[in-house]
């Protein structure tokens, strides 16, 4: 990769757009995962009884189970959301950027 191409990419506004969009999206989702997970851990550490609340009157199933499974599912869903946007929008932007800089 030549310095010439580097300079062209750096000065291409699409490069700044790509980096900005992808970074903010990635950090936003990361923070979301951290909030979800550490809230779960904090409830376990400080208020474990909350998760032992029955799901409905007289049921054995507690709200802890759907919440725990929900954390697992949220991880899957968030990765899905990222991959969807990255593999379409960001990759398209990258393609335009590279072609526009040649």
């Amino acid at each position: 990769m030549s310095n010439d191409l580097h300079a062209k990419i750096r000065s291409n506004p699409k490069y700044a757009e790509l980096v900005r969009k992808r970074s903010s999206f990635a950090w936003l989702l990361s923070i979301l995962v951290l909030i979800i997970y550490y809230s779960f851990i904090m409830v376990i550490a400080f208020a474990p009884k909350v998760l032992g609340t029955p799901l409905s009157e007289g049921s054995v199933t507690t709200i802890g189970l759907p919440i725990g499974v929900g954390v697992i599912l949220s991880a899957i869903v968030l990765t899905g959301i990222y991959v969807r946007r990255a593999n379409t929008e960001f990759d398209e932007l990258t393609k335009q950027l590279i072609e526009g800089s040649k």
Partner: protein
Amino acid sequence: MKRLNTIVPAIGAGLLALMPSLALAAGDLGQAQQQPTNWSAIGMFVVFVGMTLVITYWAARRTKSAADFYAAGGGITGFQNGLAIAGDYMSAASFLGISALVYGSGFDGLIYSVGWLVGWPIILFLIAERLRNLGKYTFADVAAYRLGQTPVRSFAATSALVVVIFYLIGQMVGAGQLIKLLFGLEYTYAVVIVGILMMIYVTFGGMKATTWVQIIKACLLLSGATFIALAVLAHFGFSFEALFAKAVEVHPKHAAIMAPGTLVSDPIEAVSLAMALMFGTAGLPHILMRFFTVADAKAARKSVFYATSFIGYFYILTFIIGFGAITLVGTNPEFLDASGKGLRGGANMAAIHLANAVGGDLFLGFISAVAFATILAVVSGLTLAGASAISHDLYANVFARGRTNEATEVRVSKLASVGLGIIAVLLGIVFEKQNIAYMVGLTFAIAASTNFPVLVMSMFWKGLSTRGAVAGGFLGLAGAVVLTVLGPTVWKDVLGHPAAIFPFKYPAIFSMPLAFASIWFFSVTDGSQRAKDEKEAFEAQLIRSETGLGAEGAHAH
């Protein structure tokens, strides 16, 4: 308890504190360990081994270049790689260990599963595609991208080897114990068999064989676990409420199994464990290496999505399996030991006995064979990662300083695989009777405090210098090891001192910030010309990591 813990090191120290009654029950496990030879399990395992050897033969004929050997020629698809990553992650320890944890205390098992899963989104968002764009065969390629090759690669290879060897000890000892239990084979034979098969896969078939062994095993494990979970649910008319109601009725802890128990009671401990589980995954060399087996960043992202889905699904299955074991195994005297309290063969047999309860002897054989295959596949991946650290980082880039050719590098790698295989067998035998429960926890703590900070800083922080990376990485490594040794699991439980010097079981909450802070400190105080050049070089690295321009694909070799 000693024996019990060695079988499932992944569960870590938590288990010991968690299951005092099982600890007592396991007291007689040591003498009556070996089970009668299980022919149907051995038969199915032989079929699996035969199949994998055919694959190894096929892969060996197609493995010519270094890219083939280290990265399967970059020809693995996102879906296949997702399965292989899931395979690396769903070890026998997590299958048997988490279901045992659920069997013993219900809800607490879910806490571990969740911790192990949430590292994956972080890997995807921050690491996967940048890793693919910057690296070639090992994560050291990325860490050393714009830094001094010799010092950074020496550091990265050292920490990779430390992680690999600790992880291997855990797996080998687990393998020996498990095989003794399931197949009725001698411990030493079991460890030697695992060692020899692993050497064959890795040296002849390289990454191609290792990946396909992992994929096959992942499919077998997922279908076996699905069958058990469905059989359990069918037993209760597909009503979770009925399953849980029965479990609460028959479990000695009753309703307490439906809420968090004693596993995580101290907030510092909880956060520290959570950090190690979450960020340690992103620092495991054998996992990071998998991202180089796909063609491009697009496939790298897809593989994380598939891996996360498979692993998440698998954890939900192990939860159902644990509850199934409470209701169908814990109530059946056939599966209990003489005291009627513990499980025959130890707590980790919960999933295995359940397989017998829902599927009979033949299915029991199948699940036993899958558990063995799982260990085999995981140790192969680890060995390959360790061997590439030796050949690609230490030999080719540090020792020969790039003045070597691919053929020699691959030969060194094969020799290193054999060497690591022998070391793993020897350590497996040495550690047979040791309490190694702390070892997987330690592995994750080291990975989170060395490889992960260096990798992240090299990708995202312009100011990183060689001195900062090496000093910070080694301090993180030292911090994780020293704090583990001084902590309760080693200082008190293993070394027998009356009280621990460092009060916490999990060091990551201290060792990880220590690593980040020292990387920062030793970089900003580095006024050398080299440090200036390294900052200059960040721009070019960033362009490649963001756009993939210049990234090394399979076609480049």
